[in-house]
């Protein structure tokens, strides 16, 4: 178990890019696919093991040491506040957390939105954001289709991830403020980072080189 480096890969948007990036630095295995029935796939030769995990669970695997490293969006890290080492900004999977309201219900100042209900998949990030603004809100936690909130009368605002903004426009929502931008990060378990430092340091350096090349 100790000779292996175990990597938690996030299912979903980040999966393919993560896999390809790791392949470029020699971390790969046969038949690693998002919908693989096998959830743990090993490469005996290079002593690498992949765990295919639900995106929001990647930090948990890494914090507990079930995986030595993982790839996960900074948005998930900010929401969960797990005790892991954040090693590298991988640059891809860029998305933005923002606050939006129905276009027709826009108000003058941000503080005018006090004491209203906010539907969000990111309650901790939302709370922190409104705390900084100095206003109280009622957080309504949902797990998906956040834009439905204002449409069905569940909330007056939403705090959600936006990429192109198409979904917002289609649902007649207007972005009112940007909260943060997030990209994919490489994270590591604290003990693994000390006990397997040489291998992980090399991985980080190799990834840095690859990312630098890709930038050009």
């Amino acid at each position, binding site marked *: 178990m100790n000779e292996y480096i175990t990597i938690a890969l996030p299912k979903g948007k980040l999966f393919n890019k993560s896999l390809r990036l790791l392949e470029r630095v020699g971390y790969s295995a046969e038949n690693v696919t998002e919908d693989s029935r096998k959830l743990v796939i090993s490469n005996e030769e290079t002593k690498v093991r992949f765990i295919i995990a639900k995106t929001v669970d990647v930090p948990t695997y890494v914090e507990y040491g079930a995986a030595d490293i993982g790839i996960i969006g900074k948005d998930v890290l900010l929401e969960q506040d797990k*005790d892991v080492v*954040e090693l590298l900004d991988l640059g891809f999977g860029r998305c933005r957390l923002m606050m939006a309201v129905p276009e027709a219900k826009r108000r003058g100042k941000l503080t005018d939105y006090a004491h209203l209900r906010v539907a969000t998949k990111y309650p901790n990030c939302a709370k922190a954001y409104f705390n900084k603004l100095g206003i109280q809100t009622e957080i309504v936690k949902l797990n998906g289709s956040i834009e439905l909130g204002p449409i069905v009368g569940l909330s007056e605002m939403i705090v959600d991830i936006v990429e192109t903004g198409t979904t917002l426009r289609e649902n007649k929502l207007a972005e009112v403020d940007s909260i943060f931008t997030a990209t994919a990060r490489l994270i590591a378990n604290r003990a693994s980072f000390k006990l397997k430092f040489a291998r992980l340091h090399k991985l980080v350096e190799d990834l840095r080189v690859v990312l630098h090349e890709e930038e050009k």
Partner: protein
Amino acid sequence: MINKVYQVPYGTKDILPGEMKTRRRIENAIIDVFDKWGYDEVKTPSFEYVDTFGSMSAKGDFRFFDRNNNLLVLRSDMTAPIARLTATRLNGGEKIKRLCYLANLYRYEEIQAGRQCEFEQAGVELLGASGAAADAEIIVLAVKALQAAGVKQFTISLGHVDFINGLAEEAGFSENQLVELKNCLRRHDAVAMQQMADAMQNIRPEIKQLFADLLFLQGGSELLAKMRAVVTNPKAVNALENLAAIYELVQAYGASEYLTFDLGLYRSLDYYTGMLFEAYLPEMGYPVAGGGRYDKMMQDFGLNYPATGFALGVDRVVLALERGGMAQAVRSWDALVAWNEGKLPEAIAKAAALRSEGRSVKLCTEAMDLTAAAAAVKEYCCSGLVYVP
């Protein structure tokens, strides 16, 4: 109303027969090592006045009021109580004081990744000695304690607060920037460190790079040599020399194979003034022991005593050994003394004789025939049977 009669409070647990025996064996082994190295065991109260902890009393502490409305706190750390004890009861006498303890501590934590609200620490404090010799003794004692507990594989990461403080000085950091730097290190956020380094201006490129690499500055003596070549700030240079001196002494003890330098190490407790370290086991995702030098703590209690020490999380060590299959919960006694009707007085004599020989004996409280006795031996986890017919 939920019936709490049968539940233990959140974050606490019972330790069952067998488990407790294993734990006690580990505790005894650790305390024995401390004793052999000249440490006096002490005991302080489970709760103290909040004032004793001062700014160290954190949000997660269990607080309550006494009858006079004084705010009390269940202790969450032992260094403040030991400092209080030393200042009030042990002042004077030997210049160098060696104290050790085995104590339950309390802090409200989310019980994830092995944290409990009630947890046990075995620790030592070496008071009155500045300098590398004392620091080396503490580090090697941590090694010996882990080994005595039965841990085979572990690594000790060693850093120094003045390396970080010195670098911050060289970079001309303001108070706020230093706080921000320490937060990044505490959160183990290399990306934030990189961003901080990128934003730095009017600074030597080598120093800028050091900041970006701070969490990656791990390695052996060659790392120290590399740093000596780059760093000029006197505080940081002294820190490196201090670390080198400590390492040499740990080598003299024959324990340097367990030691790795980790110059980005920064522990959550703010009171360290010199070297600091953490111990990691392969089975556990987080440190099982940690410590360092904290020369300023005694000043809060009106004394000027340098101090260095460490604490080891007994629960975590026990957990690691269990996971590694090295700490079986074992329940066994030498003999079951069983007896036929009317033969209890003889059975008592038999049991007494065996006990005076040093045997562990369970004496039946009721008469039983030989067959029943033979069956009972296994049930009561005894190796042998003595039957009084």
